[in-house]
């Protein structure tokens, strides 16, 4: 099996599991308990928090563990909106659904939301943000790197504009974290969401960074966990695993970026050489090192995924059919793709365990599958006739 869907989730690293195991077995104490096993668990959480804070350039009391990246997004957006003086919020058209649907829910509660457009490469314009900010703007949330097309936004510039207008700035860095340098002070962000399972950690744990002084309502009411701001008995093993995965990703960041970029660029080059009527979606270089998103004309993405799966290749698509709606990906539509082109997209997201040999296999199988589906497609008939 060739797994190239690391933007969806990543395999749990063996070293990470090893670090987690004691907290799933012998060290099962509740971190809120004062006896030995509880204290050990509490210490483990404190160490994990310190590790993550160190990597992010944050203070320990600014890092809050959550149940997922989506939860971190929900907390940041709903929490900041609740405390905001105005009822106007700003986000982008290409956010993850964890952000977009959270804003949708706020609209129903009477907030007004501006969705910043993106250009054909998928980039948000800082000028657009500048123009969109109003005296009653209570929050700006723009993702660091896109999950579908991998495009990396100019977060420093965007956050600076927000800061100049004294509007809190949140970024969903779930895809960015572990794949590029992420530092809350370098970026100048007030809130930042991250997730463990995208970087070789376990599922079911994320974190929200909240800069000291940022007004955000508490999220889950109950016990005193997470400095009294997000109650719930901690997912000790998950938190320990998250921190260790983050540590490994941070230590190997440069070499990982180099390797992933090499795989990505080789794949992009080979696809362009091998398969006609394709287009790369998203900026060619301002993108995550492991992300390549292509649209193949005249075919549909779910069929493509199913056929790749039959060949043992696991990837993702922006087609409607994989999401259960008839509309294709909002991200691909936002960069200006026609519906029928957006339906035929394929996202490959590489991980460090992938190899150049695997890329060769993927491109070979992909070329055959695309041709097979085109031969079956009434949209391709006219093109095929022209070629004859």
């Amino acid at each position, binding site marked *: 099996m060739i797994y190239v869907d690391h933007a969806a989730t990543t395999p749990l690293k063996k070293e990470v599991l090893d670090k987690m195991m004691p907290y799933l077995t012998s060290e099962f104490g509740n971190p809120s308990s004062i006896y030995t096993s509880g204290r050990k668990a509490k210490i483990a959480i404190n160490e994990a928090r310190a590790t993550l804070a160190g990597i992010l350039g944050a203070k320990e009391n600014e890092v809050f563990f959550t149940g997922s990246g989506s939860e971190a997004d929900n907390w940041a957006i709903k929490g900041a909106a609740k405390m905001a003086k105005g009822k106007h919020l700003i986000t982008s058209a290409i956010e993850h659904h964890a952000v977009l649907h959270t804003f949708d829910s706020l609209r129903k509660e009477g907030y007004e939301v501006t969705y910043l457009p993106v250009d054909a490469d998928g980039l948000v314009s800082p000028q657009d943000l500048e123009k969109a900010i109003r005296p009653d703007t209570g929050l700006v949330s723009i993702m660091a790197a896109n999950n579908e097309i991998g495009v990396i936004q100019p977060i420093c510039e965007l956050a600076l504009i927000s800061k100049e207008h004294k509007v809190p700035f949140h970024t969903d860095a779930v895809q960015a974290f572990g794949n590029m340098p992420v530092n809350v002070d370098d970026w100048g962000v007030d809130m930042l969401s991250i997730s463990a399972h995208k970087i070789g950690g376990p599922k079911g744990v994320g974190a929200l960074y909240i800069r000291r002084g940022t007004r955000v309502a508490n999220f889950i009411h109950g016990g005193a966990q997470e400095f009294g701001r997000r109650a719930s008995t901690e997912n000790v093993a998950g938190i320990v695993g998250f921190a260790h995965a983050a540590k490994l990703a941070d230590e190997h960041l440069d070499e990982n970026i180099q390797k992933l970029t090499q795989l990505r660029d080789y794949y992009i080059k080979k696809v362009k050489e091998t398969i006609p009527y394709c287009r790369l979606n998203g900026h060619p270089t301002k993108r995550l090192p492991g992300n390549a998103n292509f649209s193949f004309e005249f*075919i*549909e993405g*779910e069929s493509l995924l199913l056929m790749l799966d039959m060949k043992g290749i696991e990837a993702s698509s922006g087609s409607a059919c994989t999401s259960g709606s*008839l*509309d294709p990906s909002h991200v691909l539509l936002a960069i200006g793709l026609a*519906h*029928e082109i957006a339906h035929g997209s394929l996202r490959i997201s590489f991980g460090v365990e992938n190899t150049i040999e695997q890329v060769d296999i993927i491109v070979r199988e992909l070329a055959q599958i695309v041709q097979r589906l085109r031969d*079956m497609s009434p*949209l391709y008939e006219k093109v095929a006739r022209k070629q004859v």
Partner: protein
Amino acid sequence: MLYSEKVMDHFSNPRNVGELEDANAVGEVGNAKCGDIMKMYMKIEDDIIKDIRFKTFGCGAAVATSSMATELVKGKTIQEALKVTNKAVVEALEGLPSVKVHCSVLAEEAIKATIADYYKRQGIDPAPIVGHTADCDNCQCHHG
């Protein structure tokens, strides 16, 4: 979302796929915008569907329903073919996920559109025989 084995079988080995050179009826339904187009070719003699082919742009369910629809009407009379409903296609495929049921509707419409084309070529108004044939008017697309 899980596909039945039958759906996967018809998706991975679609029956009657391709074009039919001596077709005397061709129908096309669906819309590229929605991500589904089915084109059906029939050779009809003495009111019997002697041969049939299809081409489909669409998801796994769209390919499988097209394939099954061609199997259900091949060798049948026009009257029998017109009685094939989307429900019959779904049943023959041992079920479809609810979000994919529209694909089976498209398959039923493809049969009707192709037969309508046959009548048109004979100079016969198909409406009283085939009924209304949709050209994606029934499509549940949300595009604006």
